[in-house]
């Protein structure tokens, strides 16, 4: 671990020099508050806690996510500095005033020979606690008249923390992120498997970064992905199909696998256990059951039509209904209104609410057999609302004309239409509604190709 520590220090040398300078004189006063910010997994908490341990400074480390109330924070700080007996003196629901008074008492009994540090990790949660907690902690040194410094660690910049009327401004330090070539590859290479050479692992890391670096730079995510996929990478080596120097062959083997990982494991659509099991399975043809795949949601027959009708109702404006759903209609003229608002199509703005009657009207024109308006049809609408495929707009107690909105995407609707082998006319309706509304040329074209593919079914 120590070589890892020393490497990371080398990378953040200038920032670390500053931070260590500030803490280098423990028997003297230090600045009352310090704010350190930087991206995730850049080593903020690790470095600060390591410095505390190495220099053996008295510190209290608190994670603000754990402190649902400020009393928990006070308890942790007092027990870290003065022992659990001191913390037990706090009243049941301690206020900030109690904490400061108790701290003053305790520190006059045992004054600080060295600067005491309070480290608050994930400090952005403190903004949601008591409004006076953050300003008071920033000037704690002055309030308790003791040699104490508060260090705040966060991902979010200081400007978002500042209270309305201002506060004591801390010193700001930025922890830089890792660069691809030098730091990231080297840090990821520390996890290398003992039975393979470090060079092989380094080339594996380079391939992995080639796929994932433009999407994500979080060290933890990349490590997770590296560990999960390494056995697949080494498969040709184990089977004897390739040698360690055949980088190109190994790349061809692993690259489609990594692309699939980006769509499943990276998005947490499948768990890592499921992913590893799938790798052990020789049959590549089995598709993974992902969390948000809608292909395996089984809806009743009429529910599918109801959902398609709801989608059409949400995304087509009401005035085009006549044209689409009546046998005889006139030409629709592009009015001025339509021309002015062409820029923002419905597909960009989101679904619009529609009343129940309109849904039923479209449903009857879409469904391919005669359906009576029984309670079973209407109860399917309520089931769709419970499944959150439709959402109800407006109050629950409007019984005579409830309004709904469709909350599924086009891909889902297309998947459903595929399942019901919907007739050609429906596909035309979908395509036409997109032609009139969307302004993105490419989107229509890709949709036309999708629609024409469905024709082949």
């Amino acid at each position: 671990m120590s070589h890892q520590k020393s490497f990371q220090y080398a990378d953040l040398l200038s920032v670390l020099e500053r931070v260590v300078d500030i803490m280098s004189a423990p028997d003297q006063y230090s600045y009352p508050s310090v704010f350190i910010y930087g991206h995730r997994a850049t080593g903020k908490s690790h470095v600060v806690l390591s410095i505390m341990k190495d220099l053996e400074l008295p510190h209290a480390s608190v994670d603000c996510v754990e402190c649902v109330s400020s009393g928990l924070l006070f308890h942790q700080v007092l027990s870290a500095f003065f022992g659990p007996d001191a913390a037990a003196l706090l009243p049941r629901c301690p206020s900030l005033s109690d904490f400061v008074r108790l701290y003053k008492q305790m520190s006059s009994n045992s004054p600080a020979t060295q600067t005491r540090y309070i480290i608050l990790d994930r400090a952005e949660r403190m903004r949601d606690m008591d409004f006076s907690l953050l300003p008071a902690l920033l000037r704690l040194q002055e309030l308790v008249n003791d040699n104490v410094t508060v260090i705040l660690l966060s991902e979010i910049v200081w400007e978002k923390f500042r209270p309305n009327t201002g506060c004591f401004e801390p010193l700001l330090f930025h922890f830089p992120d890792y660069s691809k070539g030098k730091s990231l590859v080297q840090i990821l290479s520390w996890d290398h498997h003992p039975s393979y050479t470090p060079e092989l692992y380094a080339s594996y890391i380079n391939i992995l970064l080639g796929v994932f670096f433009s999407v994500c730079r979080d060290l933890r995510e990349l490590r997770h992905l590296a560990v999960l996929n390494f056995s697949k990478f080494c498969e040709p080596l184990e089977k004897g199909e390739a040698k360690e120097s055949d980088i190109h062959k190994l790349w061809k083997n692993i690259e489609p696998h990594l692309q699939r990982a980006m769509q499943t494991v990276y998005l947490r659509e499948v768990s890592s256990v499921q992913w590893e099991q799938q790798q052990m399975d020789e049959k590549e043809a089995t598709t993974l059951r992902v969390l948000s795949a809608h292909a395996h949601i089984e809806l009743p027959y009429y529910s599918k039509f109801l959902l398609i009708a709801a989608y059409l109702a949400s995304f087509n404006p009401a005035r085009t209904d006549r044209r689409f759903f009546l046998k005889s209609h006139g030409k629709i003229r592009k009015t001025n209104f339509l021309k002015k608002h062409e820029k923002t199509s419905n597909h960009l703005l989101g679904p619009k609410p529609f009343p129940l009657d309109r849904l039923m009207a479209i449903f009857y024109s879409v469904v391919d057999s005669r359906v009576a308006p029984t309670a079973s049809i209407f109860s399917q609408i309520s089931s769709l609302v419970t499944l959150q495929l439709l959402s109800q707009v407006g109050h629950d107690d409007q019984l005579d004309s409830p309004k709904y909105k469709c909350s599924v995407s086009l891909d889902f609707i297309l998947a459903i239409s595929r399942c019901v082998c919907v007739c050609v006319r429906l596909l035309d309706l979908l395509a036409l509604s997109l032609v009139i509304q969307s302004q993105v040329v490419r989107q229509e074209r890709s949709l036309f190709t999708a629609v024409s593919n469905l024709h082949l079914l």
Partner: protein
Amino acid sequence: QDRCGCVLMMLCDGVCVQAQKLLRERLCHQKLPDQPVGLDSQYKHLLELLRRTAVHGESNSVLIVGPRGSGKTMVRIHEHHFNAAPVAGLLQTDDKIALKEITRQLHLENVVGDKVFGSFAENLAFLLEALKKGDKSSSRPVLFVLDEFDLFAHHKNQTLLYNLLDVSQSAQTPVAVLGLTCRLDVLELLEKRVKSRFSHRQIHLFSSLSFAQYLDVVRAQLSLPPDFPDPKFSDEWNHSVTKLCEDKTVEEILRRNFNGSKDFRSLHSLLFLAVSRVSVSHSTLREADLIEAWRLISVDSKANVLHGLSILELCLIIAMKHLNDTYDGEPFNFQMVHNEFKKFIQRKSHSIHKFEKPVVMKAFEHLLQLELVRPVDSGVCKVQREYQLMRLMLEHGQVMEALQKYPQCPTDVKQWALSAFG
């Protein structure tokens, strides 16, 4: 000779440490200077008022208004002449807590050790009776110092303020009520009955320092006092400090700091960063230290954050910038951003791979977590995630500047950002 050198190093070490200690106490611990700088008339006015209460037994109330860091806490120096009860709005967030604190400070009879007995009503009645029993000639005057006065005005019914100001108007124990606040409009926050009992006496602490006086203050803050144990070292140090203050680049830095804010807190943070570099091996303050300290202070934190984003996230930010430019700052949603991004991928890009929509959504959510993008109405979630309206929290200039500094930015992304209409 070698031993001599060692001894010198040890002496230097000890002396350096002492100098650091003194300067750190001055800059970090915010030790109050003996005389306030640049605030003579206000200080005299305040002293006069306090004197009238202490000596002649007149009850007074005054409000000291000044921006953060302008020296309001200096009032504390005079507490020892009075029976003082300092309360702070930050700590005592409720009238009940404030009243308990006052009772504790005044050591009234219902305090045993640290615990105050009785309910809020009983405590209040007790305090008012105790104050009523005294009179001008025989009792010691009481000073109430209310730090963050504006926070007290937010308490329920402003009970504490009403009662304290009421006491200051009636002929009882001489009482001085001192309020410290940074809000100029604090009187608007007071209720009518409270405002009428207040004497409307305000002392404004606006700093009237000129730049030459500011430089003098800098020199004074950095110099070691004449009673420093090693006079040779302190002479050398003071000499180097004087030379430093006359240097052109240092003067430029101090002028920029002065133009930003005249208060001493920002000055202290700048000087502290420079002084913390002083060590045994490097025992005088150099201009490089100050330049480095200024660079650390004046950096744009959002630009630092943008430096660490992935390419996909950067492309999303550029797409949002284009949307802002085209639609004049109107809020957008994820669908629109994804649309712009797709237009870029299909028409102009060679190096960016075509990512699936969920992957782009994950990148967008990362930007949400960093608070570079914020939803317009932060609570309501009735709309689907992709259609929720958002705003970009970055300016056009910040985005362009960050692009210049971005490591290995592909040229087509840069071209896209620079093009006028996306």
